[in-house]
């Protein structure tokens, strides 16, 4: 990569044992100390939010932090969402509202990511393999056109979309949200997938075509299975971005299609000291992402680093 042009023709030997044991120990302590400090910074807000769902008012006001040591866990936060053990089977309007938003978030992020990965992979494969020429436009210009969408801030599209969607009767619908989110993540998907296809030798697809496959047959049967990890990475990254999206959802949805972040935002100001209920809502909103982060971390890293090295 970056260091490819460096030549290291010196014959390398083992470390000179000049550094004293004490200095090495000091370095170790510093490294692990710094790691632990940042781990605390990264994880404490998440822990704080989760633990606050189990606090009652006095615990909140006295700033209690450690369960069973300075406060007794209480299902208060989850009860306010209708999700605690004693309220889960009773009817709860808050829970219905919450589940509706939750489903909206799931449908819009999965739908948009699937659509973006399908049309984005096709385009990326085309851009990676074939020579296009539309008038003065070549592959490079087309790629740039797609990538340039990245810099569009959501505010620029928000108002026009509002007008357009009103005319198309797409306001406050899931399909409308899916289309906007697809537009939002498409450049990223194309970026990741083009990088992915570039690493697959073209001979693989060509060999299949000699064997009688069409271009499309070779793509679907031979190339796609190899590119699958990249597609998974692009899909997961898209899901994360769509799940967290707030701006369009707040503007384009009202009662039917608004997603979880909008519900979190709308409750933020009105709850006062009822932190337990906000904490429960926030926890529910971030839980799927924390799980994705913990279990699918390598795909996130793969997605983020694809193409960025160029």
């Amino acid at each position, binding site marked *: *990569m970056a260091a490819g042009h460096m030549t290291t023709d010196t014959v390398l030997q083992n470390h000179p044992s000049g550094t004293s044991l004490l200095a090495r120990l000091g370095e170790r302590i510093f490294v692990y100390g710094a790691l632990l400090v940042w781990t605390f910074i990264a994880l404490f807000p998440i822990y704080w939010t989760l633990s606050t769902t189990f606090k009652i008012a006095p615990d909140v006001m006295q700033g209690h932090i450690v369960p069973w040591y300075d406060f007794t866990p209480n299902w208060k936060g989850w009860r306010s969402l209708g999700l605690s053990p004693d309220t889960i089977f009773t009817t709860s309007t808050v829970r219905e509202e919450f589940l509706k938003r939750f489903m909206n978030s799931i449908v819009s992020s999965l739908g948009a990511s699937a659509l973006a990965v399908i049309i984005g992979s096709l385009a990326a494969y085309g851009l990676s393999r074939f020579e*296009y020429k539309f008038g003065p436009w070549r592959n490079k210009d087309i790629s740039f056109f797609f990538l340039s969408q990245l*810099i569009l801030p959501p*505010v620029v599209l928000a108002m*026009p979309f*509002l007008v357009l969607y009103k005319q198309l009767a797409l306001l406050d619908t899931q399909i409308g949200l899916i289309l906007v989110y697809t*537009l939002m993540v498409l450049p990223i998907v194309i970026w990741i997938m083009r990088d992915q296809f570039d690493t697959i030798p073209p001979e693989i697809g060509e060999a299949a075509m000699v064997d009688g496959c069409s271009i499309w047959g070779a793509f679907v049967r031979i190339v796609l299975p190899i590119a699958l990890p990249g597609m998974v990475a692009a899909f997961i990254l898209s899901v994360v971005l769509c799940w967290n999206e*707030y701006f369009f959802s707040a503007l384009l949805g009202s009662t039917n299609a608004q997603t979880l*972040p909008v519900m979190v935002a709308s409750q933020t100001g009105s709850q006062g000291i009822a932190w337990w209920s906000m904490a429960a809502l926030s926890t529910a909103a971030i839980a799927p992402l924390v799980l994705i982060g913990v279990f699918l971390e390598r795909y996130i890293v793969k997605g983020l680093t694809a193409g*960025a090295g160029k």
Partner: protein
Amino acid sequence: MTSISVPNEALPPQSIARHNLGHWVLWLGSVLLIVVAGLQVLDTAGITSLGFTSWRPTLYAFIAWGCALGTSLVLTRGESGQQTLFLLPALLFTIAMVIFPTIFGLAIAFTDWNLSSNTGVHFNGLDNIRQLINDPYFWNALTNMFWYVLAVFAQYAIAFGLALLLNADIVARKFFRVAFLLPLMLSPVAVSWMIGKSLMENRYGPIATLARNLGWESVAFFSTPWIARASIMAMDAWVSIPFIMILLLAGLQALPVEVKEAAKVDGATSWQSFWEITFPLMLPVSLTAIVLRIIFELKLADVVINVTSGGPGGATDTVSSFIYREYRDRSNVGYATMLAEVYLVIIIVFITLLMNFVSRYMRKVV
């Protein structure tokens, strides 16, 4: 070659028939689109009354036209048509989703459209631009963007440190990597509450308590301009540092081991070897990460909208959050759209200059 593909080239009539079919399909699709769109225009203008309730028929006709275009390309162009088919869905989708809104946006930007007044929509020429030039809040928000973009360099410095830590010879690397990455995954809106509204809450938040114990008498994170701005920057940094860190870590791991070992043999201290070897080698990755972060930073809005609403007195406002409030609170659609269009132009100019600068700088250094 198999015997199936030969007749296609040997027998022109078949190929001509296919060609014609292809043209017919495209014609049919185009006529359908024009007729449907035309009828809808007439209907909207009140000349006919076919009872359309929305423009959806035109949308469907557009989709049908896209399919017709694809079919026609394959029929008339053969293999090169099939190749174009890969690109077509994404291209048509993006064009439709960007071109129409842009046209609408430009049209709206020159009107006095306000949703809360019932005087209707009027073209008002350059009034919006004049208002924008005299709007101190817009320029204030733009100045704030300058500070927010500068904060990216602080994020970068911290992220580099973390990437070096993760790249060091440590146990449980995967645990630390996952832990460090997690903030990036969280929704900025949830973060607004988790950190801005509870951890940094003046009375009961643990960070406020900590600050009080450290001797800060009247703790308030969001009431004086610079402290409020710094607080927003801190929250934003918490979410975005992992992004830079992951890119830098990938860059560090791609560095050849020999490079660092060579430095040690020469007897350089680790401080020297970082500045003279690692840092210059990491420059391309660093610049990519910083440019990407700046692009994303220019869209910063969610945290500001939900924590401070731009306050105190506009000190934390970003352009996006300002436009959002202009629309949400004042229903000033025409003016807000003009602000957004102007902001877009500023961004495009800025990013172009930045990219030019970066590529010239790279040529000089490498």
